[in-house]
């Protein structure tokens, strides 16, 4: 490796890393938090079988899951201005990622809620609790425990998927690396470098996931849920 290349890498590393901390991670975390709310609401609407709303939710999930994320990003960022709706790139990215992730996680969450044996709902009714009380205190805590591993996997995927936001001019990690690569012509080195930084972030999230899972099993006292 030449001295020039080493210097480029040493100089670019903190830049890309910082852009990760300032853009990639906030983009991921904010989008994911909103996605969780969307997912929870959509899952509950489907479980509780709210007429009308349920069809809307099914439609939304169908659209999102049947179209590429990149197309969704383009549609909102480059397409909507044709209708006079212009959104800045960062909020636009948050919106698209949240809506996209929300649809997938809604299905995860619905599955997790449905995996809690129905008898517990009936037992709750029999001791006088209301549907919402049973949901909040009995069903959802168990469902979230079930959903935690797949949801954390989704979160980790999202760290990487945010690189697509570069396409709509969000200056996140990948875009930063791209620009430096374009300026210095060190494509191979810079893309390896940005890959490594993604790897660092994802490893940290994976580590947090393990921690969370361990905490959840110790709270539940381990063991499986009986039917």
């Amino acid at each position: 490796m030449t001295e020039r290349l080493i210097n480029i890498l040493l100089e670019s590393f903190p830049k890309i890393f910082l852009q990760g901390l300032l853009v990639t991670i906030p983009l991921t975390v904010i989008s994911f938090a909103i996605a969780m709310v969307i997912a929870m609401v959509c899952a509950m609407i489907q479980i509780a079988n709210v007429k009308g709303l349920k069809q809307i939710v099914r439609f939304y999930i169908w659209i999102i899951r049947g179209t590429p994320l990149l197309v969704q990003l383009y549609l909102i960022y480059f397409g909507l201005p044709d209708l006079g709706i212009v959104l800045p790139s960062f909020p636009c990215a948050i919106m698209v990622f949240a809506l996209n992730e929300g649809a997938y996680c809604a299905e995860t969450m619905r599955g997790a809620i449905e995996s809690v044996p129905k008898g517990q709902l009936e037992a709750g009714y029999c001791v006088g609790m209301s549907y919402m009380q049973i949901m909040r205190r009995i069903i959802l805590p168990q469902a979230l425990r079930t959903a935690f591993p797949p949801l954390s996997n989704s979160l980790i995927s999202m760290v990487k998927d945010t690189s697509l936001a570069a396409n709509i001019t969000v200056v996140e990690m990948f875009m930063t690396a791209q620009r430096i690569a374009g300026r210095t012509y060190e494509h191979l080195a810079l893309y390896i470098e940005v890959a490594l930084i993604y790897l660092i972030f994802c490893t940290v999230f994976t580590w947090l996931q393990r921690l969370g899972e361990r905490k959840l099993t110790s709270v539940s006292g381990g063991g499986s849920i009986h039917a």
Partner: protein
Amino acid sequence: MLEVTGLKKAFGGNKILKGVDVSLQKGDVLCVLGPSGSGKTTMLRCLNYLEKADAGRMRFMENEYDMPGISKKEISAYRRHTAFVFQNFNLFANKTAIQNVTEGLIVARRMSRAEATERAEKALIEVGLEGKFDSRPSQLSGGQQQRVAIARAVAAEPDVIFFDEPTSALDPELIGGVLDVIRGLAENGRTMMIVTHEVNFAHNVATRVIFMDEGRILADAPRREFFGAEQLPRIRSFLNSLERKE
């Protein structure tokens, strides 16, 4: 105290209950016998509105309900006086034994935590589970889980407890212990309606026995009479068939 007339229920055109009349007096231990598929579970679920009846009238204490038309409010008022013990226990898997008992008391009956805990401890001791207060359902045997479920039912001091085959999901060696607990409740004068295949238990503990077959009640008699000599051939053959299995 509880009187139901003309209870009907069909699942998708398949008539399960074809006009059932059943009543309970205070202090009754009513055992419900009958072959598999005769509608025992369905009847019990209708009686606690886990299943909506197609027809039927219910008189309970001073209230009268049209069973298909009962309102949510009336159901929850009614359920304050009843409890249900399921074949599969249906404990709250994310709660400890004692939390399973206190949950309904605190959340639905707005009892203070201290009072609920005191009641729950008493109920768990009554069913022989001192020392298991903080166990999760997954750490308990089937018999222990069912006893938690019984404690959960008893702690609310209901006027009636419904049991749907409380020992059918248990290993043979655990059945006796749970039946003993229910026998203890009977001795304390609890009003109960118990669907069971344990004929000996019915013979020893019931005050009254009803026999269901194909969605109807074929016999409804005090225990002595039911197990006495003058019995319908259909019932005799059912009891004989159970004996042969044992």
